[in-house]
């Protein structure tokens, strides 16, 4: 069984980790989330009925776990401490370097978006999921997803230069 899980992690671990990071903006926490994701999958494998691909299923768990974390007191306390600059000692040099990196234009702009808009961009453009799959993962309607996606594109456009904006292409929903 461990071999099976290891094989699944080999195939799907990387993008689950990246999705979690794009939600929580912290690699250490993203690793914790991914750990929970694979543990949840391992424990309740029988629930995966292959109605969707394994990738979509794992992304769904990752999204839910990330939501759980963002709603948790742990995260709220973390945000509060960051705002109060009490948590300065926890800021690693790597983290500071990344934050100062001018090349992280898209990531910075993405993190400035509210979560409902950021997540549809992540799932649609980064995970390349279909609108129907996103609606299922987020437990909302396809129209809601389309509306959010349109607004998210507008919001992102305001934050990016014309050159950087081209990354989203001329996708018409």
């Amino acid at each position, binding site marked *: 069984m461990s071999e099976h899980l290891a094989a699944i*992690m080999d195939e799907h671990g*990387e993008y689950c980790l990246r999705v979690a990071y794009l939600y929580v903006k912290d690699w250490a926490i993203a690793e914790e989330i991914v750990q929970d994701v694979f543990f949840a999958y391992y424990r309740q494998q029988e*629930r995966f009925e292959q109605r969707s691909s394994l990738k979509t299923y794992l992304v*769904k768990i990752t999204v839910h776990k990330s939501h759980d974390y963002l709603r948790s007191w742990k995260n709220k306390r973390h945000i509060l401490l960051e705002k109060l600059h009490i948590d300065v000692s926890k800021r690693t040099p790597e983290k500071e370097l990344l934050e100062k990196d001018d090349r992280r234009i*898209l990531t910075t702009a993405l993190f400035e978006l509210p979560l409902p808009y950021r997540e549809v961009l992540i799932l649609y453009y980064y995970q390349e999921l279909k609108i129907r799959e996103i609606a299922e993962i987020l437990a909302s309607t396809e129209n809601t997803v389309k509306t959010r996606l349109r607004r998210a594109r507008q919001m992102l456009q305001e934050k990016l230069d014309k050159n950087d904006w081209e990354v989203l292409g001329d996708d018409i929903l």
Partner: protein
Amino acid sequence: MTSFKDKLDKELGEAPRFSQPLQKRILQHVKHKKRRNRQYPTITFGAVVMTLLLLFVMGPWGQVETTKHATIVELAQQEAIKQFTMAQNWGKDSFKAGRTGWIIGQQVFKEESERDMLKQILQQATVTLKDNNFITYAKSDIWVEFDNGQVIKLKMYLNDTELVFTDQQTNISYKVKNENLASVYKNLVQRSEFNINSSELITFLVIFIFIGWLVDKLLRRKFNIPKEPKYVSTGHQRTIYIAKFLNVIFIWLFSMKGWFLHTAATCAFLAVVIVSTIMIEYYYGREEKRHYVSIISSIVMLLVFFIYFMYIL
């Protein structure tokens, strides 16, 4: 033109982040936590058993309530009645009155005049042979507690002129020939009648179902809990079916044995049903927060039930 995905990957770093040490850590975590699978049902089972034991210890079954006495007449002459409860019962084999607070649908009598009346009945009683042909129009069970803690259980039969009762412990029958006492007792019996109006019951059921539906709808909207699919997996479906089947069996058994009249039995039944439902939803539908619906619905429904219960009593 670079795509969004490529650009983002470049910004996040193209080297893999999901490292071998992380994978090893997850596998170790999985192996370590595997043992916990049994903890979950064990804790649930333990909690249910502990609740039942607590109710058993606190309840009437856990209390030593009878001591031997020669006759009820002697007992009534020597000891004062502390309180008594009464319940209508036309069944020969069952007894529906009991300790206060533990039986549903019984009337509690603590007033001095009521206690005196029963004391007079008991003191004036004479032992008689059991007459199965005795014509009555009121049959009731009476549970009596004396000041010294002693308890007796009586099955009382009444007609216009006389009262006949049987001590459930000794099976001795007694007769009281006193029209005045029979008349006073008759008034008391009429007062203690426990009737649920059928139209009130239907109104309550409609309100109950409507509130249940509304709470479910609001919670699902608030927490984004999908209604479909109804079951998360086949395991979930199977467990729900088994739980429903067991519930029906228990309801049938409790109704046949008349256990629903016992507050402790009803509470234990409700506790087991509610806890098992919440646990099943938590176990299978935690990702979708399905247990939120079970928990909050149970609280609201219990509250509604409690209000109705206070209204009818």
